């Protein structure tokens, strides 16, 4: 079946099998391998991308369901060689270890912060319940999203500051 969709602002047209999963389309056809596959039961969230601006699990969508729609993947977040504030915050707060869940986690955080510019820790934890991380224990992820929220909420000038991570040892 012929489909046409926009991925990160670029139009992709292809003739695909109807059963092709969106995540495979992104990874194989569009060569965007930042979106990962971590399970097959829509639980882990490693494959999270934005579909028309909303976080979805791309392993549980057929590529044909994204026909004529817009997909945004992790690769689109950094602009002009500069990390998105959420990416920057994950870096600064050590919100990742092996990095496998990270793209999905960041895409979910992206939606979370769009819906709620200043979430509480509880809301952050609730907001990322569809993303599993086996390395970090989530605490640094919560801190990263909290810090990204503060940066994105503050004046744009503040975003530019290259803040050093706080020293955590006592």
């Amino acid at each position, binding site marked *: *079946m012929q489909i046409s969709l926009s991925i990160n602002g670029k139009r992709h047209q292809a003739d695909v*099998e*109807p*059963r092709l*999963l969106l995540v495979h389309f992104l990874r194989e056809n569009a060569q965007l391998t930042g979106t990962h*596959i971590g399970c*097959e*039961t*829509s*639980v882990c*969230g490693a494959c*999270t991308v934005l*579909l028309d601006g*909303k*976080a*979805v*699990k791309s*392993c*549980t*969508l*057929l590529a*044909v*369901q994204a*026909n004529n729609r817009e997909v945004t993947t992790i690769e689109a977040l950094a602009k002009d060689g500069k990390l998105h504030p959420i990416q920057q915050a994950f870096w600064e707060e050590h919100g990742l270890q092996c990095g496998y869940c990270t793209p999905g986690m960041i895409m*979910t955080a992206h*939606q*979370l912060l769009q819906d709620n510019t200043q979430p509480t820790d509880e809301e952050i934890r609730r*907001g990322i*319940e*569809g*993303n599993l991380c086996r390395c970090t224990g989530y605490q640094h992820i919560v801190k990263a999203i909290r810090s990204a929220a503060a940066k994105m909420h503050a004046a744009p000038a503040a975003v530019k500051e290259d803040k050093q991570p706080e020293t955590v040892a006592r």
Partner: protein
Amino acid sequence: MIPEAFEYFSPASTQEAISLSRRYGTDAKFLSGGHSLVPMMKLRLATPRQVIDLGGIQELAQISDQGEKIKIGALVTHRAIETSQTLKNRCALLPQTASEIGDVQVRNRGTIGGSIAHADPAADYPAALLALDVQIEIEGDSGRRQVPAVDFFLDLFTTALSPGELIVAIHVPALPRGAGSAYQKLRQQASGFAIAGAAAVVSKDEGGKCQKIAVALTGVGPKAFRLTRVEEALRGKSLTESNVTRACKDVAAGVDVQGDIHASTEYRTAMADVFARRAILAAAAG
């Protein structure tokens, strides 16, 4: 991880969808958000030969306030229900229930029609839909009909839908002013589905006595069910903790309670009482 091959159709209207379904019979499956069907197809537990994607039928994706009732199209996502201001104002039970489903990504895709057509015995909506006495509008060859929720859920993964029929809308009566409602659930740790989930709607009279009450349970038996005995016991009474606790004894009596590795029959039966009580008390407080 990879579904079996199938033929794909993307009809533009319900009539077209129904005629496709009639043509292919039980080999065909309707696809809405795909969050029940696609995971089963990936594990090859479901292998439809034809998939009829309802996603293009725009009219099914609307929430409309129709005065006494709110009409929720079958393709309205859990997330749209969770965040609907109309529903929050007029029937807060549904947004609250929707917010308990899966996670935000799942709620962004999963639809109310898809969920209830699938009729998973541990799904969250059925309890709320029963407690709200909604009407489920179904379209088939011979036109549209409305089925009350209580007649819709028949058994494990079994509904009143006949082959070739699809859900087009849910008609939800707005809650009367001053009514309280709550959905309380014990989650299965891995899947997030309900081990026991209770929805309650209560209205109190001026003296604070329970005037109207509707309570339903999901997750406990092969299908969700209303707790009519509990309702009768509490109608006209004050919803004090002791009254409610007394009324919520053995609420699942007579139900074929399912046991599995996550919760034995005995535990699920006990949790039915606990969550029914908690839902009623929360509804009474709210």
